[in-house]
C-alpha cells in the first residue's frame, strides 16, 4: 500500500462520446426548439446574404437609374425601385451588411464590456462594486433610444460612432445581469482554489470566472443583436444614423415613409419586413438559447 495506484482509473467516457457532442447538441437544439432553430436559420441566411451581397444582388445598390424611378415590383426589379431608381432588393441585400456590422459590432462590444465590468465588479466586491453599480444605474435610468440619440449627437454620425452610440446603453444592462451570476461564481470553491493558488486578479477574472458566465453572456449577446439592429434602423430613420447613399434599412424607410407611402408602398414595405424579420429571428433564437442554457445554469 505504498502508493496510490488504486483504482480510480476506470475510464467511463469514450472518445466517440466526446466527438459526437457538438453535432448532437445542435441536433438536440433543433429537435427541442424548432422556433429557435428557425430563428437561427434566418440569422444564418442573413449572414450568408450579407457576405455574398456583391454576387447575389441584381444591381449595384448605389446605381441611380432615372429611367426606372419608382418602378413597382416587376420582373426587372423584383421589389421595385426607389425615388432615384435604385433597386430595392439590392439595397435590402446590401443593407443587411450595415445591419449586421452595426448589430454584431455593438452587441459584441456591449456584451463583452458589460461582462468584464460585471465580473470585475462582482469579484472585487465591496466599495468597488458599489461605485461601479451605482454608475451603471445612472445609465440604465435612461431609455435605450434616448441615450443612443444623445451619444450620436455628441460623437457625430459615422459608422464607428454609430456602433459606439448603440454600445454605450447596452453595457450597463449586460453588466447588471452578468454581475448577478458572477456573484454566485465568486463563491464557488474553484475560485477560492484559484485565490489560494496565488493567482493574480486579472487571471482569476478572465480565466476562472469569465468562462463560467458564458451562458448569460450568450443570452445577452443574442438579445442585443436584435435590439442593436432595431436601434440602428431607428437612428437611421431619424436621420441620425447611417447617411445616404449607403444602403441601410432604416434609411430606406425614412425616404419611403416621408413622401411615397401611398404612391410607392413597396419602398417602405420591404425594408420594414427585413427589419422585422431580422429582429424577430434574433429574438426567437435568443429566447430559445436562454431556455436551452438556463437549466444548465441552475445545475452548474
Amino acid at each position: 500500500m505504498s502508493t496510490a495506484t488504486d483504482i480510480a482509473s476506470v475510464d467511463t467516457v469514450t472518445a466517440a462520446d466526446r466527438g459526437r457532442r457538438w453535432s448532437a447538441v445542435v441536433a438536440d437544439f433543433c429537435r427541442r426548439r424548432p422556433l429557435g432553430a428557425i430563428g437561427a436559420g434566418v440569422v444564418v441566411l442573413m449572414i450568408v446574404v450579407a457576405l455574398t451581397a456583391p454576387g447575389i444582388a441584381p444591381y449595384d445598390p448605389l446605381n441611380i437609374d432615372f429611367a426606372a424611378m419608382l418602378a413597382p415590383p416587376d420582373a426587372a426589379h423584383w421589389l421595385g425601385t426607389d425615388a432615384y431608381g435604385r433597386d430595392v432588393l439590392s439595397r435590402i441585400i446590401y443593407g443587411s451588411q450595415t445591419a449586421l456590422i452595426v448589430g454584431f459590432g455593438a452587441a459584441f462590444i456591449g456584451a463583452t464590456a458589460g461582462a468584464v465590468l460585471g465580473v470585475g465588479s462582482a469579484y472585487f466586491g465591496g466599495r468597488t462594486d458599489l461605485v461601479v453599480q451605482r454608475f451603471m444605474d445612472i445609465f440604465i435610468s435612461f431609455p435605450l433610444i434616448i441615450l443612443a440619440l444623445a451619444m450620436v449627437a455628441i460623437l457625430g454620425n459615422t459608422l464607428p460612432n454609430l456602433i459606439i452610440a448603440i454600445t454605450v446603453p447596452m453595457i450597463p444592462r449586460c453588466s447588471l445581469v452578468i454581475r448577478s451570476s458572477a456573484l454566485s461564481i465568486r463563491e464557488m470553491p474553484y475560485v477560492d482554489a484559484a485565490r489560494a493558488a496565488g493567482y493574480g486578479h486579472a487571471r482569476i477574472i478572465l480565466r476562472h470566472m469569465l468562462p463560467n458566465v458564458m451562458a448569460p453572456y450568450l443570452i445577452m449577446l443574442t438579445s442585443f443583436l436584435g435590439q442593436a439592429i432595431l436601434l440602428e434602423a431607428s437612428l437611421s430613420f431619424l436621420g441620425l444614423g447611417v447617411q445616404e447613399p449607403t444602403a441601410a434599412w432604416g434609411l430606406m424607410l425614412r425616404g419611403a415613409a416621408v413622401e411615397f407611402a401611398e404612391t410607392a408602398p413597396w419602398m417602405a414595405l420591404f425594408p420594414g419586413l427585413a427589419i422585422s424579420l431580422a429582429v424577430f429571428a434574433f429574438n426567437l433564437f435568443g429566447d430559445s438559447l436562454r431556455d436551452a442554457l438556463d437549466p444548465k445554469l441552475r445545475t452548474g
Partner: protein
Amino acid sequence: MTDVAADTLLDVRDLRTEFATSHGVVRAVDGVSWDVRAGETVALVGESGCGKSVSALSIMGLVARPAGRVVGGEIWFKGRDLLKLSEDEMRDIRGREIAMVFQEPMTSLNPVLTVGRQITEACEIHLGYTPTQAHARAVEVLGFVGIPDGARRLKQYPHQFSGGMRQRLMIAIALSCRPDLILADEPTTALDVTIQAQILDLMKDLSRQFGTANLIITHNLGVVARYADRVNVMYAGKIVERGTAREIYANPRHPYTLGLLRSVPRLDEPKRARLDPIQGQPPDLTRLPPGCAFAPRCAFAIDRCRAEVPPLTSVGGAHQSACWVADSLPGVAAKPVAEQVPA
C-alpha cells in the same frame, strides 16, 4: 416473496423504474422486491445512484415525468396496488396514509407560510378537520416531536427555527394525519451529529408510541445499525442483500456489504494503519457490465459473476444475498490488509 406475512403493510414486488437520459435508458430501480410490516423500521441502504430514493418516489407516485417512469411491478399497500390508482386516489394516500420526510429541512418547508399553516393544511385536507380542530392537532403533534410552547411556535415562520427544529417540524407534519407509514429519505444527513441522534431517537420513539412503520433511506451504516429492524442493501438498482440488521452486520453475505462495513473507520476498534476501501468507481448505470454489477469492483469475483446476474437467494432463513460466492465470503472481522496498530 410468496409468503406475505399477515401484518405486511407495504409489499413492493419486482418494481422497475426507468429514466430516459441523453446517454440511454437508465434502469434506476431494476426488479426490486421488499416489504414493510406494520410498526417496524426498515432501511434501504446504498450509495448515491443506487436507486434507493427512486424507490421511495415510485411508491409515492412522484417519479419526475416525463423522463422517469415506473415500467413494471406492483406496490401493494393495505390491499391496493398503488400503481393502479388514479392521481386523485394517490393524492389521498400521500400525506394521509404514507407521509414523507425529506433530507433538506431547509428547503422542504415553505418559507412564506407559518409552520402552523403548513401543519394544519394537511389535517384540513386529509382529515376534514375544522380550523380549530386542526390547530389543536398541530399543537399536539408539536408536543410529540419535542417542540414545547406549540401555540406560540405555530405562528412563526420556518426561518425562525434551527436545522434540527425544522426536521422536527417535518416529522410533525408527517405525523399530523396519523399515517401508517413514514418514508424518510436521508432524514439526518443534513444535520449535525448531536442533532442526528436526537432526531433518530425521536423517530424510533414515535414509531413505538403510534405504531407507525418507518422506511429509512440512508447511506449511513451507523444510522441503520441503531434504528432499523430489517435492512435492504441496494447496489446499481438492485437489492444485493437483505436480512435483519443483526444478520447483516454480524455476518454480511455480499461482498458489497462486507466492503462497506470494512471500509469505514470505527470508534470501537483500534485504529488501523490503512482503511480497506472498496476498489473502483461507483457504477455507471448507462453501461452496466453483464453479470453482477458489482463484479468489476469485487475482490471475490469469479468468472461466473461476470457472465450471469446472481439472483437473490437465501443464505439462512430470511437472510438473502445476491452473490454466487456468498457461502465462501470471509467474516467482517477478518482483516486481510490492515495490520492493527494500537490506538
